[in-house]
């Protein structure tokens, strides 16, 4: 269609122009690298965006005046995201981190128009020459935390407050369950979907419902401290997510599964400064220290901590993964007979493993 042709031609011209303009800018290596961050929720003091922010601060500390950063928080996914990302690019940021999966398509659109800007998108699956994807193998740390939960539960019912049934969350649930079952084959995990990343009231109600069903260890894949706090209030245990929440739940927190982006951000910034950056998909886990288990609570005995450390080293050495065969889903269907799940299978995960009660909502 002629409209399309004109549009494409003009875009191509715009791209050519911007490359022409950008080229001299690249030559100025002594100017600080401008780095932009887009956060999907307010930073707060715990949670997904907070950990991203901690990463940013660590990068600034590591690189000093070689970088100049700025961020925009609470940017809803959708049409607005594209504008914010584009604005950051237009303001001269040469490295932009877009930290939520809903930013994937807007990031790619803007990246096409600014080929000299490097984009790093978290938790997505599409790359381009100037867009790489990063995620962390939180599920490895989840597996380890499952070992702790499995050892510490007495009712053998463990509650999980989830947000949305997307693969990343399912990886967490399933790995957690596998960890539990590796030390306690009788325990069961029950899941409640709060249908929101960020509604403490709903999280709390879900957590209470799980406790009403007999759960004595709780964990969550949502963004607030509500679940952990309820556990503290009721004298139960909890595994925190995103951040160490022990100051909100000194007695209840058994351990926290935390995210650490600082090293990765610093590494990317260094590569961009050197000019050695290349697009890739980085999925770091325990080995790269992008996911950790930390913040062991006072109730966790020494032998459990030792077991966790032992398993952690095994995972880092590649001898163990949370999803080694044999792997069955919770209807008995065999998923894997030999080997272990590869990245593609992990990204398409849409089932519960053995040990999780119930069915996935939309099936």
């Amino acid at each position, binding site marked *: 269609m002629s409209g399309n042709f004109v549009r494409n031609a003009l875009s191509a011209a715009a791209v050519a122009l911007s490359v022409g303009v950008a080229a001299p800018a690249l030559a100025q290596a002594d100017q600080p690298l401008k780095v932009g961050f887009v956060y999907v929720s307010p930073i707060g003091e715990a949670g997904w965006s907070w950990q991203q922010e901690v990463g940013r601060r660590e990068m600034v500390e590591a690189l000093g005046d070689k970088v100049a950063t700025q961020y925009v928080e609470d940017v809803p996914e959708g049409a607005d995201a594209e504008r914010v990302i584009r604005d950051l690019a237009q303001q001269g940021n040469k490295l932009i981190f877009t930290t939520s999966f809903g930013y994937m398509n807007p990031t790619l659109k803007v990246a096409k128009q600014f080929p000299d800007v490097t984009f790093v998108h978290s938790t997505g699956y599409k790359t381009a020459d100037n867009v790489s994807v990063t995620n962390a193998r939180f599920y490895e740390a989840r597996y380890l935390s499952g070992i702790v939960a499995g050892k510490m539960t007495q009712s053998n019912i463990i509650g999980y407050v989830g947000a949305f049934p997307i693969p990343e969350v399912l990886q967490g649930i399933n790995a957690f369950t596998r960890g539990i079952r590796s030390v306690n084959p009788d325990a069961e995990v029950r899941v409640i979907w709060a249908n929101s990343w960020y509604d403490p009231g709903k999280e709390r109600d879900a957590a209470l419902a799980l406790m009403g069903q007999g759960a004595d260890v709780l964990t969550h894949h949502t963004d607030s401290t509500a679940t952990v706090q309820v556990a503290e209030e009721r004298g139960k245990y909890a595994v925190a997510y995103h951040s160490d929440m022990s100051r909100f739940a000194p007695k209840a927190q058994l351990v926290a599964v935390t995210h650490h982006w600082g090293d990765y951000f610093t590494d990317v910034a260094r590569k961009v400064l050197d000019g050695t950056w290349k697009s890739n998909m980085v999925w770091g886990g325990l080995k790269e220290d992008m996911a950790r288990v930390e913040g062991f609570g006072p109730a966790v005995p020494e032998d459990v901590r030792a077991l966790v450390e032992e398993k952690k080293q095994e995972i880092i050495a590649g001898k163990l993964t949370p999803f080694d065969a044999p792997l069955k889903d919770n209807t008995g269907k065999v998923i894997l007979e030999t080997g272990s799940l590869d990245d593609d299978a992990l990204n398409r995960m849409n089932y519960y493993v053995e040990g999780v009660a119930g069915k996935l*909502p939309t099936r």
Partner: protein
Amino acid sequence: MDSLAPLIASAIVAGTPLMLAGLGLLINERSGVINLGSEGMMLMGAISAFAVVVATGNFFFGFVAGALVSMLMSGFFAWLTIWLGANQVATGLALSLFGVGASAYLGLPYAGESLLPPQFGVPLLQDIPVLGQALFSHHPMVYGSLILCVAIAWFLGRTRAGLILRAVGESPTSAHSLGYNVRRIRLAAVLFGGSCCGLAGAFMSLVYTPLWVEGMVAGRGWIALALVAFATWRPYRLMAGAYLFGGITILTYHMQALGVPIASQLLSMLPYIATIVVLVLISRNSTWIRLNMPASLGKTFNPNS
């Protein structure tokens, strides 16, 4: 079902902020003024209460602060709508929008903070199996809301002041010609409504989920508005409705935990659909609706006209 007691307990706690806000809005609307600013007022009440408790450690002051701040907001609303004659719907909406933004802004230093509130319970009674946990282990505010409900029912039905309030809501011109200061009465009703919303917000941030995150009221202000209509502007029905609404959400979680295979979003729709159904049922008879809904709701009254 060993989860019955926690279910009832959670439903009661979930229903309490709805009931508190709803009772305030009920009085508000009985005088003929509709205040759509409940969401904003609840949030402002929540952050004020939270800030005060963080600063002083005293939960009582927290509740008072929440009530006061929301009362001030509703006072501003009253001035605009009752004296300056501004459109009630628009002004209420502006109040909500402003309250959402202002509470988020004021709450920035407290983001992610949380409190450890003391545990409460009625001595002796709370040890009764099942019923004890379900009914007698709650925060005093839960029982306070019940007392408030009874007090309001008595006020509206048995006192002269209540009768005057209802008269103002039904026919402000008649009340005016009888010599009552319609504006002052409406002001009192609006201020009361505001402080109740503030208490509801304080309950959310001090008891329900003792932490602060922006937007934590998550639409309960709007639900409280619906609840008043659902209850046909009667306090006891409001109480039933509040617990019912609170209960439905909790029930959907319990059903999920039990593995009931209905999509959670569809279950979450139930309270809203239920409200619509009730609205239809109570409104379908035009005489009945006149009997139940304050006739002058939403209309500005000018004594000088």
